[in-house]
């Protein structure tokens, strides 16, 4: 049995639509305390809408959201003091000096640490007298990061923090994530479409696609569960071989790769040679699926009618 306290965030059957467009459809997920939880998905998949529910800026109309043991829309100030939040947008007031922002944060967060803030300023090469508008985009992102972590939040939420930033600024963000989680019990929710970053820092990966949570999986088990199998055929084909329990076919002519889900009961364990749409296919190679391959396979557009041949197959 796991108690409610094992999870920093619990989302239950959350749905949301904006002007008739469904942004989230029956999303349920749980974020274990002390983990780095990666939320991946294409642009417009619903990641930000989900995060807005978690920080209480949107109220759950259908379904429920519980964050650090409370409904984020009831007494949000109580919750926000325990959360650090950073988004891709340059949302901080540009006329402020860094030291003014730090004074402001000190009044908002009871656990604010001036010494940690000073340490972060040194680390990021920020001068407290500098105005935000005088900084580069990377500099402002570092200020936003400082404002999100110097009170050592129990839950750090980063919504596409790295978009459009240089590699050094992105590395600073990743390091902040690692520091946060290395302190016992603190949790990070990290949304990104930079899969390389997700792969590095996350314990758990959830994939949101067109408002639907397609999968939520511990990162370490992903390459064990999914295998990429490469097939060859003598007769060039315009579609991947049909293999039970497989998905995400990609390739062309005589070489195709598919993903096999070892937990799908339909999947065959040792498929070395198969017959599919009139051709014989030989398995030439197989390897554990990478996060990139799994993501591409999962978000691939499915053929509309099951019986029609996949003309103009999506190459991912």
């Amino acid at each position, binding site marked *: 049995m796991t108690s409610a306290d094992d999870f920093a965030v619990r989302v239950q059957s959350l749905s949301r639509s904006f002007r008739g467009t469904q942004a989230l459809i029956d999303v349920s997920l749980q974020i274990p305390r002390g983990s*780095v939880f990666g939320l991946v998905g294409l642009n417009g998949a619903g990641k930000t809408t989900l995060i807005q529910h978690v920080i209480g800026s949107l109220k759950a109309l259908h379904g429920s959201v519980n964050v650090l043991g409370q409904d984020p829309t009831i007494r949000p100030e109580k919750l926000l003091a325990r959360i650090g939040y950073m988004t891709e947008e340059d949302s901080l007031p540009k006329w402020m000096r860094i030291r003014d922002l730090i004074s402001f944060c000190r009044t908002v967060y009871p656990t604010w640490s001036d010494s940690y803030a000073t340490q972060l300023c040194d680390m990021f090469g920020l001068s407290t007298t500098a105005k935000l508008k005088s900084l580069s985009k990377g500099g402002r992102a570092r200020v936003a990061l400082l404002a999100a972590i110097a009170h050592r939040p129990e839950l750090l939420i980063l919504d596409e923090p790295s978009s459009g930033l240089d590699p050094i600024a992105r590395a600073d963000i990743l*390091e902040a994530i*690692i520091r946060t989680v*290395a302190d016992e019990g603190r949790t990070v929710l990290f949304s990104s479409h930079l*899969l390389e970053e997700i792969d*590095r820092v996350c*314990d758990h990966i959830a994939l949101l696609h067109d408002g639907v949570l397609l999968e939520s999986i511990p990162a370490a088990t992903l390459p064990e569960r999914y295998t990429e199998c490469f097939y060859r055929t003598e007769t060039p084909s315009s579609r991947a071989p049909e293999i039970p329990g497989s998905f995400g076919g990609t390739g062309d002519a005589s070489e195709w790769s598919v993903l096999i889900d070892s937990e799908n009961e339909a999947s065959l364990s040792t498929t070395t040679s198969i017959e599919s749409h009139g051709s014989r296919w030989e398995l030439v190679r197989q390897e554990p699926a990478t*996060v990139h391959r799994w993501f591409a396979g999962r978000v691939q557009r499915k053929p509309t009618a099951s019986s029609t041949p996949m003309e103009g197959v999506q190459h991912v």
Partner: protein
Amino acid sequence: MLIQIQSGSQPIYQQIVDQIRFRILSAQLKAGDELPTIRGLAETLKVNPNTIARAYRELEHEGLVEKRRTTGTFVAESSGTLSRTRRRQILTPEIDKLLVLAGHLGADAAELDELIASRQQALQRKE
């Protein structure tokens, strides 16, 4: 420790294991040397601490490193002398790759033997 992580190839913990193992077996890391702390290495590499812990566990399982309670992780005293079984486990997949490639290229066993011997001489000359 400068470890290179490449995305989109092998699992990250495996890349860490391979690179630390190489350092130990090639004596760049010697018996008794201390490995970075899990947290320290996680921060340097920007990799989840659990991934580092998993890599260290794997190296411990291989007998290359040992955990000393409260102090940290150290290169094992016996690390230079892996058991015959372990040596084979590590070498086999590499040899398989070589054999498959040689097969595709049409190199037979005799040619391969000859090449291995000549490369061994070349490497010894360098040392």
